[in-house]
């Protein structure tokens, strides 16, 4: 690779911002930001997140060797668009415009995203925050992309769906049974989490981070806690690191089991659904018994964990692992020997490898289509460097591959749990976090993929600004691509196999 093609080279050419840990943050002027856009067109650097403050836009980037945040001050409220080059950033730029009023020049899409015209204010986090004038916008006012062609019909679905799932709107254009286009419209569950976090102590904001996406409460709490610890130049004690991993792996297993069951249910195979949900319940009960909350909400906190694991709790978890493994493996065998089920999942909803790389999609969506990133390995964080586990990668990219990634990960998580419980460090489980100014970035691996959280603390250790980026941001757009050419009836199956978070995305 030429020097110019390295992120490190670009970063070295910009002005460093002190106090950002553990990776560098640099400031890029207008010319440099434009140069960055050009480089993004030429390189394979991954765009992990794009977010803002009232007068600055930030982007997190990564290549093989470097991870960095590049910031572009935009006092005039404008910045050159990166989304026109990296489609993964289009929705992020739309969100930045809705929340901060910062405009991406040359943007690929000028429709609002999170702002449905219902908030009492515009640019709620921006310098130009102002009361909204006029009546609320009608739902029908949103300009869905036009589709032309003979025999096409439109199927609008949502935001309130038939099942017990989160709200979002899907606009299908179908030719007979075949989907010609799917367009998502999200933002319905936007709760203003980023705005609520501002000015709160790290501990208060942690409770909000825990509720970014309930199914990933451990992962989001962990990413937030690690970002705060990085900003305040502290670390959690070793026992806390281990207990955090125990909780994270339990969360992964529980969610993968739930998804496995739900996918089979959407293929009308109730048997696996019933058994997988029973196993999931066993995991949640064990979590409840050991950590006092079935979803382990508010258990991972800045500085460590909020509760210790007793010897009895550790024994409960060991029994769970022993019981889980044979029962889970038997279910996998059932799945793999049911042609009627495989007929639904194999070759359905294929995501293409180049798209997965282009969007930096993580988790089972990426790993089922050839992108083997796992934050536990790269960049890595304790205690995983001392643990033995494999990251599965497949290339088919279909529903079946996403199911198999989950299978393998459940097995690996059980293995990780066994290792963790056999070598639990002793000692304290929480340290107080010094109240000092700083900025921190953390990436952790949730069940769905990598959760990235950026936090800036003021001199008293209060949150100046926080951006939790759920993996769903990078996966939702790919669902639109995966369903193309499939039949409408397979959408639930595809959707379940992605299982993107609405709440995590809408914030």
């Amino acid at each position, binding site marked *: 690779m030429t020097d110019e093609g390295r992120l490190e080279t670009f970063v070295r050419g910009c002005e460093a911002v002190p106090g950002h840990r553990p990776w560098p943050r640099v400031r890029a002027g207008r010319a440099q930001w434009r140069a960055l856009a050009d480089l993004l067109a030429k390189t394979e650097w991954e765009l992990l997140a794009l977010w803002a403050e009232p007068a600055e836009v930030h982007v997190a980037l990564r290549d093989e060797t470097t991870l960095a945040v590049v910031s572009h001050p935009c006092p005039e409220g404008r910045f050159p668009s990166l989304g026109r080059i990296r489609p993964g950033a289009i929705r992020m730029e739309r969100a930045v415009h809705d929340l901060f009023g910062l405009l991406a020049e040359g943007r690929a899409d000028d429709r609002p995203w999170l702002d449905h015209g219902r908030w009492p204010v515009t640019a709620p986090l921006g310098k130009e925050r102002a009361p909204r004038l006029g009546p609320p916008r009608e739902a029908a006012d949103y300009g869905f992309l036009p589709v032309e062609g003979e025999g096409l019909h439109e199927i609008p679905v949502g935001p309130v769906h*038939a099942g017990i799932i989160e709200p979002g709107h899907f606009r299908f254009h179908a030719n007979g049974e075949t989907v010609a286009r799917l367009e998502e419209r999200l*933002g319905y*569950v*936007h*709760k203003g989490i980023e705005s*609520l976090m501002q000015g709160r102590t790290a501990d208060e904001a942690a409770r909000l981070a825990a509720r970014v996406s309930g199914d990933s409460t451990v992962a989001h709490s962990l990413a937030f806690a690690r970002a705060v610890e990085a900003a305040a130049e502290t670390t959690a004690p070793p026992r806390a690191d281990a207990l955090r991993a125990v909780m994270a792996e339990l969360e992964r297993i529980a969610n993968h089991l739930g998804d496995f069951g739900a996918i089979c249910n959407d293929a009308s195979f109730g048997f696996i659904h019933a058994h997988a*949900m029973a196993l999931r*319940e066993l995991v949640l009960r064990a979590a409840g018994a050991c950590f006092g909350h079935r979803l382990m909400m508010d258990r991972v906190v800045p500085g460590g964990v909020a509760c210790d694991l007793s010897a009895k709790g550790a024994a409960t978890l060991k029994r769970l692992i022993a019981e889980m493994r044979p*029962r889970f493996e038997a279910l996998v065998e059932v799945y793999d020997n049911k042609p009627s089920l495989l007929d639904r999942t194999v070759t359905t909803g294929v995501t293409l490898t180049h798209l997965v790389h282009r969007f930096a999609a993580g988790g089972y969506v990426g790993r089922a289509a050839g992108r083997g990133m796992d934050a536990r390995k790269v960049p890595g964080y304790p205690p995983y460097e001392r643990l033995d586990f494999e990251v599965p990668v497949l290339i088919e990219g279909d529903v079946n591959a996403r199911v198999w990634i989950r299978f393998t990960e459940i097995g690996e998580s059980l293995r990780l749990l066994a290792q963790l419980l056999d070598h639990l460090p002793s000692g304290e489980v929480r340290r107080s976090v010094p109240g000092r100014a700083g900025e921190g970035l953390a990436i952790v691996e949730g069940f769905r993929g990598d959760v990235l959280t950026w936090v800036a603390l003021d001199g008293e250790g209060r949150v100046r600004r926080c951006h939790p980026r759920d993996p769903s941001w990078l996966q939702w757009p790919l669902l639109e691509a995966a369903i193309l050419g499939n039949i409408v009836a397979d959408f639930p199956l595809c959707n379940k196999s992605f299982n993107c978070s609405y*709440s995590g995305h809408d914030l």
Partner: protein
Amino acid sequence: MWKIVAATVLKGPHTMHGPKAAADALAELGRRVEAAARARLGRSLSIREVDAGSCNGCELEVHALGNVFYDLERFGIRFVASPRHADVLLVTGPVTHNMAEALKRTYDATPDPKWVIALGDCACTGGLFGESYACVGAAETVVPVDLHIPGCPPPPERILAGLLALIEAADGRIAPAAATGVSRSPPDP
């Protein structure tokens, strides 16, 4: 597959005994139950779940009600796909501005008599989110609520106890004096 079936048959089911109808829920409902609801619901409930802004934690526990441990359907309670088939709306989340209209519309599409349950701290009070530029707050601010089931999220047993209380109330097993006390306020136009 048959091995698993055989093991299940031999070991017996996971299904546990149902909890008692929650006393506090019975008390709350007793004040509101109407004769019409009693006649209509009998001993079954059709529920339409509406996520009006939840973090999805509450949904996970509602889902869990369907697993073999809680086996919701044995009590005559089932989730339906359309509000038009529902007796009960189960609302979760601090109602967001972006969902308020959809919630109201779902309520309007549900035939009378209908019941609304606010599930989880968010729907009960607005929870951690409260009122902001993005959130309207508790479910009550948009639709009349008959029963509150707090918790973040409430565990399945507590949800089940609340639902059973609703069935008991509708079944007329609440002291009639309490049952005929207050009628519900009509929804906002």
